[in-house]
């Protein structure tokens, strides 16, 4: 849709389509149009709200947590395994630490993992995918072949193997997941690039003497941005889930740092009598993955792309 015939203010827009009522109206920003479509999708709004709240809770964890000191190696044996109460909203764990406070801090580890994994694998995967789709030939065969190999590998088994070769901690979990993750982006961006590489405007840029780098950066990448952002949002959910599973199996951060997966693993030993020990961290994992999933689905509908 060209920016020319868009309404400038919401009041001038048709309530159903967002198109201008007055065709002579001055242009409206593309950003507004995008927001218009997004704001009419309740699931996406809920997702955006959840994601925002997860980020805020992680950022301001020391202010939100009722017992910020319980994040460290605190032991309070008189209060161990206490059910939820006014003082400990989500009960206490086997060392008498406040589970609510630890869950709040647990979001930090999850988000760090997301940033670390996607911060590397999205640019690398996208660059390789674009290169494979644009250059074709051997570049294509090599990258496509390698991604096929990675696909046959159960990611969890692989991450466990890598995580164990190195010492199990957050950084190494991040490395293990990143090594597997970029292939998915590479595959996706490869498909998108292939579908647009023979378009006229790319041919035109080439005829005008544009360099490969210019074409990749200025012509192809902008076409991939919407797909990348949808995929990255959905991936954030999977990384949280995956990281929680890894740390549930004992490949997470070192204790006493709170981490949602290992908190569930710790609490599991005392289930079913002390059900609250898995409740808060378990719900936190669900909450965060749900948020990123809803937001990602909403973005996909908004941009109308396939991932």
């Amino acid at each position, binding site marked *: 849709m060209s920016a020319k015939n868009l309404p400038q203010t919401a009041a001038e827009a048709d309530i159903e389509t967002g198109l201008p009522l007055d065709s002579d109206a001055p242009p409206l920003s593309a950003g507004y149009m995008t927001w218009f479509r997004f704001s009419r999708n309740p699931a996406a709004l809920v997702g955006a709200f959840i994601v925002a709240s997860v980020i805020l809770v992680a950022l301001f964890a020391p202010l939100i947590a009722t017992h910020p000191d319980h994040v460290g190696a605190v032991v309070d044996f008189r209060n161990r395994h206490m059910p939820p109460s006014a003082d400990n909203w989500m009960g206490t764990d086997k060392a008498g630490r406040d589970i609510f406070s630890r869950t709040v801090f647990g979001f930090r580890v999850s988000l760090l993992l997301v940033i670390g994994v996607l911060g590397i694998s999205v640019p690398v995967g996208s660059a390789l995918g674009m290169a494979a789709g644009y250059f074709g030939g051997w570049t294509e065969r090599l990258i496509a072949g390698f991604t*096929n*190999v990675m*696909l*046959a*590998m*159960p*990611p*969890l*088994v*692989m991450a*466990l*193997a*890598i995580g*164990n*070769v190195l010492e199990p901690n957050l950084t190494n979990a991040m490395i293990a997941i990143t090594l597997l993750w970029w292939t998915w982006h590479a595959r996706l961006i490869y498909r998108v690039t292939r579908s647009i590489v023979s378009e006229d405007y790319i041919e035109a840029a080439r005829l005008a003497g544009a360099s490969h780098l210019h074409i990749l950066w200025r012509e192809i990448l902008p076409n991939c941005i919407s797909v990348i952002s949808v995929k990255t949002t959905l991936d954030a*959910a999977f990384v949280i*889930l995956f990281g*929680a*599973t890894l740390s*549930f*199996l*004992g490949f997470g951060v070192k204790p006493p740092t709170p981490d949602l*997966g290992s908190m*569930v*693993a710790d609490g*599991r030993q005392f*289930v*079913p009598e002390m*059900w609250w020990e*898995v409740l808060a961290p*378990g719900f936190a*994992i*669900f909450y965060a*993955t*749900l948020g990123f*999933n*809803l937001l990602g689905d909403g973005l996909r509908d908004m941009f109308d792309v396939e991932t």
Partner: protein
Amino acid sequence: MRFLSFIEPILARLAGFIMVLLVLSLMIFLLARVVPGDPARMALGPSATQEQVAELRLEMGLDEPILTQYVAYMGRALQGDLGRSITSGRPVLSDIADFLPATLELVLVTVFLMVIIAIPLGVLTARHRDRWIDNSGRLFSLIGVTIPSFLFAIGLQLLAANFFPDWPILGRVDYRLSPPDGPTGLLLIDSIVHGRADVFLDALQHLAFPALALAMSGIGQVTRITRSAMIENQRKDHVLTLRSFGVPDRVIVFRYLLKLSSVAPLTIMGLEFASLIGNAFVVEMVFGWGGFASYGLTAILQKDLNALMAVVLISGLFFIVANLVIDVVLSVIDPRQRRRAAA
């Protein structure tokens, strides 16, 4: 001739898969050899003398160049010798033979659950698009996708503990029943062969929760894909033609649409297999399921290299076999797939 055209693309894919398996094994082999810590020392324990360690290193061929070691390993592996596990002290192959059937049984029941729950649910939600059935079905599949399987597993255990105290939540079969020996190691099949209804029912009870926990994420994915494939195919010209001819809705859905719309979910199920095997590690751990994944987890934790190699290779093989089966099924139900695979 017709038979050949059917088998050829599958052979081509098989060749591709074997390449994948080779590269995969090389990667894991290299990875396993950069493990800090001497495998020979790990096997013998801290009290072994320097000479004993050196002797075992020589025996395990650890002083050879890595590629020589790899070629030797693969040569032996092809003859069925996967080496000895340092934790169990037995040949890895007989360990696997003991542990694999439990996982195979779990995975097969899981896939069965996925198919019988997800595909009908996908069809149902597509037919009632944007109505309450659709919305609750979509919510259900969203929950399946967002909740990790270890939470499902724990949740099901909690449910059983609180509401069905007699329902078994650990192990494969009640220890008081002596399960029949052989021939497959799959309790469901063995108990039928031996005519043991008590074992069959008990094993089925034990299977229900682990299989459900393992199936949930796949159910979520497959339901979504089936739904969108049904909706997309409803708009195809030939479906509109059938409809305008007055073909009853039920016939259109079950004779034509379902077949057409099962291609995408089947393909996804093949890809899902990789994460299914991964999640089996978690589910087996929670339910005390003495299977292949539990074995693999121990191997990884103990840096038991031969066992680790075997676990990775067999996981890869699992994935490959599953995808080949799906390829065959696809080429039966959708002739276009044959040409696609050949191209």
